[in-house]
């Protein structure tokens, strides 16, 4: 299957390891992964803050960048959720029928990583090895917008050496909410405090999630507390293999060329 990696602007700029890890997992499973460099940002920050008009050029760009892939996979429930749930309406509101059709088509092909692995590829054991005590925070948009359900925990349970510890009040929002964290910093911080308390109560070494944004929030709080619990994206755990597990899967199946930068 020819997969387009929807890397997300946050991973691109702040967490490139998460992008590498997503590619590694998909390639290890025998798929061809391409990264169209025409992508920049899906426009979520703009749309969710009320700047839908400013987001429209980004929506157009994103739709065009991912035309032609059988599947578009993002290491983010939130960004995949915007494309799946809001792109069709946003595109329709422009009155551009071609854009609306293309956006609806892209929405149907866009997946968050864990739901793609479990729901589309039917894989739960991706051959990962990660000998750590881990707790999983289900991010709101993966849980309630995309309904990824137990896909992430099924993947984690299949990771060799990993001890999965249940997070109390796991389904409670961490308080990130995009620009909410800035506009309503006090409320966001209060929510974060409760999330951190619950994370710390598990005694985990690592807190993981499917969204770098929420992890940046939770991890930023834990870092400020010098709590010692590391935020690690789900993709990075799934990409990890045992050191002695043979030669690493090299980038042998990479597509001939990334799509031209427009």
């Amino acid at each position, binding site marked *: 299957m020819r997969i387009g990696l929807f*890397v997300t602007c946050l991973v691109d700029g702040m967490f490139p390891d998460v992008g590498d890890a997503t590619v590694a997992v998909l390639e290890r499973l025998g798929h061809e992964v391409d990264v169209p460099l025409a992508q920049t940002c899906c426009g979520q920050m703009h749309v969710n803050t009320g*700047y839908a008009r400013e987001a429209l050029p980004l929506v157009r760009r994103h739709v065009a960048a991912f035309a032609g892939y059988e599947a578009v996979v993002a290491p983010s429930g939130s960004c995949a959720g915007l494309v799946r749930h809001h792109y069709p309406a946003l595109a329709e509101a422009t009155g551009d029928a071609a854009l609306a059709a293309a956006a609806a088509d892209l929405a149907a092909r866009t997946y968050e990583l864990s739901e793609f692995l479990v729901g589309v590829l039917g894989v739960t054991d991706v051959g990962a090895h990660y000998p750590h005590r881990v707790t999983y925070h289900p991010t709101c*948009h993966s849980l*309630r917008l995309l309904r990824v359900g137990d896909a992430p925990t099924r993947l984690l349970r299949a990771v060799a050496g990993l001890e999965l510890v249940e997070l109390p009040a796991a389904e409670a929002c961490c308080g990130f909410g995009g620009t909410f964290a800035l506009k309503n910093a*006090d409320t966001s911080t209060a929510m974060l405090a409760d999330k951190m308390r619950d994370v710390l109560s598990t005694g985990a070494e690592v807190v993981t999630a499917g969204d770098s944004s929420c992890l940046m929030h939770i991890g930023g709080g834990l870092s400020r507390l010098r709590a010692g619990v590391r935020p690690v994206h789900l993709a990075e755990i799934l990409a990890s293999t045992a050191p002695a597990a043979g030669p690493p899967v090299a980038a042998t199946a990479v597509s001939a060329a990334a799509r031209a*930068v427009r």
Partner: protein
Amino acid sequence: MTRPAVRPDAGQASSATFLGLPAVVPPTAPRGVGMLRGDEPFPAAARRALADAQLRHNLGKATGTIRARRAGVVAELDDWDRLRAAGAAIKDDVLAHLDDYLTRLEEQVVARGGVVHWARDAVEANRIVVDLVRATGATEAVKVKSMATQEIGLNEALADAGIAAWETDLAELIVQLGHDRPSHIVVPAIHRNRAEIRDIFAREMGAAGGVPAPDGLTDEPRALAEAARAHLRQRFLSAKVAISGANFAVAETGTLCVVESEGNGRMCLTLPDTLITVMGLEKIVPTWRDLEVFLQLLPRSATGERMNPYTSMWTGVAPGDGPRAFHLVLLDNGRTATLADPAGRAALRCIRCAACLNVCPVYERTGGHAYGSVYPGPIGAVLSPQLAGVTDNPSLPYASTLCGACLDACPVAIDIPSMLVHLRARVVDAGRGTGRPPSAERAVMAAAAWTMAKPGRWARALRAARLGRLLGRRRGAIGRLPPPLASWTTSRDLPVPPAESFRDRWSRRQAGDGLGSLREGQR
């Protein structure tokens, strides 16, 4: 005014078109009356609430209790999702044909001996009710808990006219005696714990002119309920006029329905000679059969009960049973303005169960007062700005992380998160050219959109961001940022930007410079 006004916040025609609003829409609720607008923006009000540890504790405990109970009784119904879909569809049908249903309801109520009044807004509704009470010669009225009358500030209007309004619902009584404001749709005194309630009762019951609280009143909930019973008993038995809201009005028969727990509603609806019901005009259901849906959805969602203790239904005036005069006041007050927005009108499906408040992580921490409106929480964040105009409540659509818990809990499937996003766009568009929201935000958003519009610009921007690495040299994380990002770093660190963006790494890999190994097994 006789014609719908041009929406003051419609802004440029292009934005109204983009957001799906008609060019001419009905007026929003008037300023200066009622309770739909806060005195200060949500973040400022929330900050004060967050500092109140007692409030946080009370709210956490109460919402935790109700969440668990609701989940239990909802799980009992194997057809919950289908009931929910039916509830949404019934309400959408009502809204789509509201003019027909309103006239049908009026016809039926009048045919059964009731009188129907139409109120364009809070001022008009208050005047109608004041005149009706005055016409009876009464100087006081007992009240059933009602969101509509809170919304229009009826108690204040009655007081100005020399008429005392006695709240009879326990929570409303706590609020009224405490000179307080409601903070929840179903349980207006949710912000008070039993000890605070005891103190309010002991201090205020006698002063209010009713039966004082007994000496040695404890904070046992049963004792507090007993004190409320004694305080209000004679008032119920002697009241001449009652004022209520309504949960539902059945258009085909003109039947009104009030759902309650304590029996104060029954007292008000049954004993006085005159009953005045103030009802938002969206409270209609077309047929009796539709009640079979809502009488399952509402109690389970609101108080987590299979059925609330008392539901009263009356149709006009019944000879020999209940009031001899029944007045129904149909209230607009911004509802038709809400109806005019195709992406916002579903907020009028709301049956006021407050399930969205109880599951909202923001409401749980700030409580209801921070929202400034009688409608707090997620539904308030979409309803208040629509009823009163987004320019009057510009911070409310932002009072959410868009976590989606409200949509899951809503018994009529109002997509509150999507509606919040839509209303944020209305706030931004209404403010274009006015400096609201702050121009700094506008500039950042415009700059970001410009940068992201071209991959080349974006790639260069990411390379420039590596300068941020200097900020985190010492600790390996960034602990302090300048505005507008300073509010991030008051409580969280920011990771140091990577030495190379993902796209630059990928490009090098594509160029075959030997980065082939994707760092397998390094963690």
